[in-house]
């Protein structure tokens, strides 16, 4: 078997398909809606915007909820038992097939987050200033009521700008976001193997909805509760933000460790279960 070539082909096949195009169009459109007020602000004050709005957009609760619903839709073809997989499994064996599906979920997760970042930059169009700093526009948005005035759909916490360099926060957002998407994708894959697809979709949708729960509980216990809600960790600007003297997301080290362990455990469940599962092929494309 040629696993690297096979993985490459499977990943490309999963990226270049209608399901991905639907997700990317929706993601691009919602991102455009979020970036539009920044463009309006930029036009008004004749200052270009730095390309680092993405972490602030992702930290918005409505954006993250819609985004995660898109992810649930994207991975809802689990456990990948469409007929065309039948000819692959017979050639690879159960274990190798599952390993490649796991690796493809990881690859897709980084691709989607990378696309999200790119979309936020492209939506700025000619109003984007290529700088490694936060830029005047984001600074002004953080320190004045300009964001409210121009109808920003996300907040720009100054604490995040103080604690992180722009590139650092963007990289952290893409990294944690990709790992969370990967975790949700693998959870859906594992749940669909152990139970069925309906359970997988329900679990993932419940995880997406849980960000509302974390948002609405008392800030003093928000951090403790959010330790069990990985989707809320994608709101990376909250890492530096205290509400009523308490942080509302866990420390970065905890998030990265918990995601790594969670992903590893899910991989083990998938590899254990795929040995025993009965392949019920279906027509769905």
């Amino acid at each position: 078997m040629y696993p690297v070539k096979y993985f490459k082909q499977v990943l490309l096949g999963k990226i270049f398909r209608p399901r991905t195009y639907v997700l990317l169009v929706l993601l691009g459109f919602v991102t455009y809606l979020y970036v539009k007020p920044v463009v309006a602000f930029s036009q008004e004050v004749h200052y270009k915007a730095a390309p680092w709005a993405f972490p602030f957009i992702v930290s918005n609760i409505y954006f993250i909820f819609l985004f995660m619903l898109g992810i649930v839709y994207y991975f809802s073809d689990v456990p990948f038992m469409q007929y065309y997989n039948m000819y692959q499994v017979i050639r690879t064996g159960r274990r190798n097939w599952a390993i490649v599906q796991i690796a493809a979920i990881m690859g897709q997760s980084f691709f989607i987050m990378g696309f999200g970042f790119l979309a936020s930059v492209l939506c700025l169009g000619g109003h984007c200033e290529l700088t490694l700093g936060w830029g005047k526009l984001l600074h002004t948005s953080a320190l004045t009521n300009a964001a409210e005035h121009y109808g920003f759909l996300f907040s720009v916490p100054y604490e995040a700008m103080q604690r992180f360099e722009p590139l650092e926060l963007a990289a952290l957002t893409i990294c944690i976001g990709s790992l969370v998407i990967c975790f949700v994708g693998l959870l859906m894959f594992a749940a669909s193997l152990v139970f069925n697809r309906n359970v997988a979709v329900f679990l993932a949708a419940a995880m997406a909805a849980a960000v509302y729960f974390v948002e609405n509980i008392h800030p003093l216990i928000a951090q403790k509760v959010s330790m069990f809600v990985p989707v809320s960790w994608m709101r990376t600007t909250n890492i530096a933000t205290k509400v009523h003297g308490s942080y509302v997301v866990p420390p970065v080290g905890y998030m990265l460790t918990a995601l790594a362990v969670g992903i590893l455990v899910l991989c083990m469940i998938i590899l254990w279960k795929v040995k025993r599962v009965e392949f019920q092929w279906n027509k769905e494309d």
Partner: protein
Amino acid sequence: MGECVIEVRNVSKSFRGEAVLKDVSLKCEGGRIYGIVGYNGSGKTVLFKCICGFFHVDAGEILINSKQMGKEIDMLSDAGIIIEEPGYLRNLSGYKNLDFLYRIRNKPNKQHLQDIMQKVGLDPFSKKHVGHYSLGMKQRLAIAQATMEDPGILILDEPMNGLDKQGIAEMRDFFEEQKSMGKLIILASHNKEDINALCDEVYEMDKGTLNRVR
């Protein structure tokens, strides 16, 4: 007679309490064609899926070259299969679908794939996506897919589906040629003519039980 390669021993299989295979036994050797006839829902496809390793058996065992399916091996790897509907990546051409599957275990071989497509009556240079193929073309592509890696075993569930008379005649010759190369072929078909013309042994599957009829 060739070496025994597939042995199904007293296999039973149920779904939600309903027995689909009941104490099925079958011994198959290389260089022969085995036919299985039976109505829809009689258990032919389930038997094929058990032999391939897609389903686990509830009782009994399946041996492939003396190795137990589900314990020593988890898939019938040295096999070309056509089971139920031929499934492909719809937005790729027939050639690209074959190339994708071929590359899983082999180095790319353009000429070989072009030859095999021509052999089953398909144009390897056509850019037409498989999603626009007729049932007959999909079936021909399935046969190319099953045979392109020169496997020792062919598991073919209704391989003549959707083929016209000329196509059926061509495929019969093709399967005879495969048999003469020492391959073991298990064939399920509704068409008695196909079974009579091709098979050395014929079995009937009826409500989960398998009986030899010829």
